[in-house]
């Protein structure tokens, strides 16, 4: 996403709204908030241009805490509200904060359509694999068998992989980062913002109350270097504490190889097929979990196109006036003509 305004310099605290933050102590949302505020301050966008739109959920409280324009919408509809905000005024810098329930359960349709249309916005999916605000029901990203208040005998659903769902929907920018890895989060969000079009960022987020440690096996300090591979555009796919391992694409699989043999990551291939493949991982779960940038391709953004089409019509037909409006069909006179 890009805006056409002149750079301004801000500090993180310029993006603090002063509202009392009401998440549970220890919630991953705090770190994400802080990361986003830092990123906002760094972008050189005048703060009045930011609009943060959300749905309903713990994560959807986000807009209240950022000193920008904000719209706390209704459950699941943030991508639609944001599409309206952006299409009406493409000069705005539109961000969506949403949860795994908000975005992928009730709001699943709006997010895939916003992606398909390539509405220029950044979507932050706070994925804690649980419904936080409504006190702990399983979500569309919860692991099968999960016992929750609504599934005391274990859930029977297969979860979505949000990355694959968004790739399947044609999202032009797809990435993943982690609440506790703030430098990575900031890097990914900056790239998402730099992308012109729909940018989807899944953020693995810990819910201390209802799903504590859901991502420990990927994100805990001790193991994360071995369990994560950062997809860095133009860089080889290497991982491990000593960056001593690499990934190489084979025709129908991915192998673990030495760093030298690793495939160089290209998120800009039109098809997104490699992104899909690496996101699916392998059947035995041996491959590390990818974070970073899965896909980043250029495509027309509907918000700009709408206005371009209007401008083209105006250029061709002239700005429509009330007179044109009324006289576009056959007319006739009653009484003396004027």
């Amino acid at each position: 996403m890009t805006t056409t305004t002149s750079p301004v310099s801000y500090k993180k605290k310029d993006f603090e709204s002063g509202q009392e933050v009401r998440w549970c102590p220890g919630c991953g949302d705090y770190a994400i908030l802080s990361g986003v505020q830092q990123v906002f301050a760094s972008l050189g966008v005048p703060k009045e241009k930011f609009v943060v739109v959300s749905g309903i959920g713990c994560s959807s409280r986000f807009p209240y805490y950022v000193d920008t324009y904000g719209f706390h919408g209704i459950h699941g509809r943030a991508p639609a509200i944001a599409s309206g905000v952006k299409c009406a005024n493409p000069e705005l810098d539109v961000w969506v904060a949403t949860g795994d329930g908000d975005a992928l359960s009730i709001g699943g349709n709006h997010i895939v359509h916003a992606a398909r249309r390539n509405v220029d916005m950044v979507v932050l999916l706070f994925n804690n694999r649980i419904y936080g605000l409504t006190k702990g029901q399983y979500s569309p990203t919860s692991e099968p068998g999960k016992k929750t208040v609504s599934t005391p005998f274990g859930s029977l659903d297969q979860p979505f992989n949000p990355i694959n769902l968004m790739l399947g929907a044609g999202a032009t920018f797809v990435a993943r980062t982690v609440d506790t890895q703030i430098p990575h989060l900031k890097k990914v969000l900056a790239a998402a913002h730099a992308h012109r079009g729909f940018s989807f960022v899944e953020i693995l987020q810990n819910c201390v109350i209802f799903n504590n440690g859901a991502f420990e096996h990927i994100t805990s300090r001790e193991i994360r270097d071995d369990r994560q591979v950062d997809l860095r555009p133009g860089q080889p796919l290497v991982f491990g504490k000593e960056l001593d391992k690499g990934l190489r694409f084979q025709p129908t699989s991915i192998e673990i190889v030495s760093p030298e043999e690793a495939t160089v990551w290209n998120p800009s291939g039109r098809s997104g097929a490699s992104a899909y493949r690496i996101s699916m991982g392998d059947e035995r779960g041996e491959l590390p979990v990818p974070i970073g940038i899965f896909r980043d391709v250029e495509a027309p953004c509907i918000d700009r196109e709408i206005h371009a089409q209007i401008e083209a019509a105006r250029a061709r037909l002239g700005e429509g006036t009330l007179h044109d409006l009324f006289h576009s069909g056959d007319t006739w006179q009653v009484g003396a003509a004027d």
Partner: protein
Amino acid sequence: MTPPQTADRPKERLEEVVIRFAGDSGDGMQLTGTQFTNTSAVLGNDLATFPDFPAEIRAPAGTLFGVSGFQVRFSARDIHTPGDAPDVLVAMNPAALKVNLPDLKPGGLLIVNTGNFGPKDLEKAHYDSNPLDDPRLEQEYRLVKLDLNEATLQATKDSGLGSKDALRCKNLLALGMLYWVFSRPLSTTEAWLEKKFAGKPEVLAANLAALRAGHTIAENSEIFQGRQYEVAPAPLPRGTYRNVKGNDATAMGLVAAAKLSGLPLFLGSYPITPASDILHALARYKNFGVITFQAEDEIAGICTAIGASYSGALAVTTTSGPGLALKTEAMGLAVMTELPLVIVDVQRGGPSTGLPTKTEQADLLMALWGRHGECPMPVLAASSPADCFWAALEAARIALKYMTPVLLLTDGYLGNGAEPFRIPEDGELTPFPVRHWTDPEDFQPYRRDPETLARPWAVPGTPGLQHRIGGLEKADITGHVCYDPDNHEKMVALREAKVMGVAREYAPLEVFGEASGDLLVLGWGSTFGSVRGAVVRARQAGKKVSQLHLRHLWPLPPDLGGILERFERILIPEMNRGQLARLIRGEYLREVVSLTKVKGRPFTTAETLAKIEELLG
């Protein structure tokens, strides 16, 4: 039209005529009717039209359910409906005859295309024998039988078109005949054909040939016994007119509101019959700066509109019953965030998918109360196709002035029907420029205008006005999230007071007829025309009956209660099971007589008149 008993060369003058064109969906009946309408409009007749097409896109040829009809009434007087029963029926095939003949006035002119009365055609229409062989037909109606197919093939044989394509022109031939019968020029239709088929010279030639052949056949053959009619121009208020369909008028009203307010227009919508035409119409106004966003569903339709409203646009969402149901939750969000928004519901037959291509007025109570929580919203209704323009303009004006969603009710009958629209003259429309809030000095997003109770409209991009809104209860003035019990009660009351305040600016109600009497016929929406017709006739018969028609359903006009008191009885005709009647009873504790019709069809004047006569004895 009651044709005189003797055939006479001089043209007979008629006050008005109702023609119904009926044929297969593929026979071009809608087009034929529209052309007849436009030609008559230019002659200065008052007009009303009503198309009635099947739910199927192209129902199999010749079937009963595939019959497509178009009724036009043109008149030397001021009229308000497309007429109850046609004076003239054009039946292109047996199915069209079967479906429509019961409506034709006794003695009416019946034009039948005999070319389509083969055994197969008869079978598809479930006729055991050829109805044209029944002598009663000729006794009861003025029957004109002609093989239009054959005549069309003859007329077009030099056009270079194959016979299948050439046959398609038979509707033009029928049209040409009627132009002669009713003394209308061919020029309007000729000009239209020339534009439409500019790139297809053979099609153009064939159509022109058929049109002219029809005219010639009527003039020269004896099929009409030389009887030709005239309908003089109607004494309409002076001005420039055009013909409009209700849905197009709604679209024009919204564009006009955008122009008058100085805001861009944003439509977020999802196609649904019979509302889609508003989307289609607005999509053509690109050079007026209109944004049309065909959303993934109705929820996204209204949510994108809410987003656009937040961004500062004049935001609109259009739909019909099932779609309105889906928008319910988001309408609550618009109420809580106090953003301007126009919601148009083109009502159709329900419940559920119901009768999707038919008309009804059964969404009124839903429009008033169909939202969770205390969620008030002004509700307006349009009363005729042309009135859709004015109603849409008014809805947008209220939304912008009071920072509130406004619901506008029209229906399938209004949306698809057409009538002349007097084009507002320069200066007749007062601009109401909207200025977004820009002053950061002590800005508070929920500090209200003391008069209208509207909150300031501060749009993203405005320096210094950053603020957050949403669906949780808002603290008075600051707009912060607030769970305080007293604040909630106060905000509920404030939202209510704001909406109720809209009524202060209504013009006084105008009763048609005396201001008191034996009976007041109270109506809303598309029943206007049939009620007017009935009331006029009852008054001519000396009854003390008046008419009052409501534009504003919520809040109700402050002078309504007083008017109701001045009548002995109140009759409320509605295309539902008595929804306005329920509202009036609850509001004024006043007994009313409910006349209901739930048939997917508008009231006829006769039906309303019969009830008036029953009540007044």
